[in-house]
């Protein structure tokens, strides 16, 4: 419900909808995978992170937060000094880490209606474009929505932490595309060194990332099933070894085993000569 990933393909800044991976045009023009995907996302950030972000000073280039280009961001905070003008509404967003100026252009009645209900002292979620306007860092907001369920506030800050960890991990790995299913490993490592209290924190974070990577896990199940259902696989009486699955599908063995367990539970595959060889039940 609060996930920022639903905005992946619908930002107004995505250049006319040519960013889908099915378009060959996008493949030619796209920068390295991790960066290309990241600039289309809404990155959850705190005002503090924005204040420390790198920026070349050139109005056309993007901010860089923790090594990742951050063009569009999502934030949660309190509204202050809301000022209405003819063409826009501006306010300061205070998220407890700092205050940043936001501007919401009002072109259509939809825009006007959205900002009507926003008042000083209200908690809102702002989605917008991070930019420099007249020398100042600012958010050009394309969505300002009141927070109605206050779990959204703890969610947002945990989301910021989660995102920070993911980009830290992909920084360590160089330019390899960050796969959502590796988030579990990255989340539990830095927290293990803390006291006992932090281990429960890592489980809540991995629950969170578990939800986000749920679709990736299902995708993995399907990949394995598809591979086992290939004619070349079904022909083999003793089935396919899990290491072959890992190598061919380029998925880590632990992930393969997780999928295999759930596919076995559903009766879609079964083990053959030993616990490492599997065949599709179809």
């Amino acid at each position: 419900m609060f996930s920022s990933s639903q905005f992946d393909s619908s930002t107004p800044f995505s250049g006319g909808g040519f960013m889908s991976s099915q378009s060959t045009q996008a493949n030619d023009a796209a920068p390295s995978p991790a960066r290309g995907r990241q600039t289309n996302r809404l990155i959850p950030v705190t005002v503090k992170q924005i204040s420390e972000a790198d920026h070349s000073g050139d109005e056309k280039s993007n901010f860089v937060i923790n090594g990742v280009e951050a063009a569009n961001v999502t934030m949660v905070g309190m509204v202050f000094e809301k000022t209405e003008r003819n063409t826009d509404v501006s306010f300061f967003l205070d998220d407890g880490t700092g205050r940043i100026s936001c501007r919401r252009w009002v072109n259509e009645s939809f825009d006007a209606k959205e900002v009507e209900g926003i008042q000083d002292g209200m908690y809102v979620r702002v989605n917008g474009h991070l930019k420099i306007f007249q020398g100042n860092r600012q958010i050009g907001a394309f969505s300002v929505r009141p927070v109605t369920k206050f779990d959204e506030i703890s969610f947002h800050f945990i989301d910021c932490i989660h995102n920070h960890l993911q980009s830290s991990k992909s920084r360590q790995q160089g330019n390899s595309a960050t796969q959502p299913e590796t988030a579990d490993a990255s989340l539990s490592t830095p927290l293990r060194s803390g006291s006992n209290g932090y281990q429960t924190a890592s489980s809540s974070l991995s629950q969170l990332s578990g939800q986000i990577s749920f679709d990736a896990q299902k995708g993995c199940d399907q990949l394995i099933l598809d591979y086992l259902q290939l004619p070349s696989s079904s022909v083999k009486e003793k089935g396919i070894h899990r290491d072959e699955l890992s190598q061919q599908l380029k998925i880590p063995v632990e992930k393969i085993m997780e999928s295999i367990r759930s596919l076995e539970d559903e009766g879609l595959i079964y083990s053959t000569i030993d616990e490492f060889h599997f065949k599709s039940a179809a």
Partner: protein
Amino acid sequence: MLVYGKTTRDMDTSNPAAFVNADLLRLYVGKRVRALIQVVRSDGGSVVGKSTDDGQIIVKGNPPVPPTNFVEVIGVADSDKSIRAEIWTNFGDAIDTHNYNQLCQLANSDFKHLFI
């Protein structure tokens, strides 16, 4: 901050509010904090609240009328057990205090630099 008569106020991180529970409050005496509390009782001029780590925090000031079960207070910690509230926000009658509490711990440890 005034520069040649023009106010440059793009962003300001000079007055953050640290996430605290009863245990962490003592680290921020005299400083600005924010805490989620469950209202236990109101005693004219102050509220006794249960923090997200099941401790007690006294909040001085006047809560919203009527207050919901859970309230977030932002203010200055004037002792290791109390906060002088500047802003009160009704957070409703049900919220995941466990999540908020873990956020308090994370925001005060490995990820403090993202907050204050």
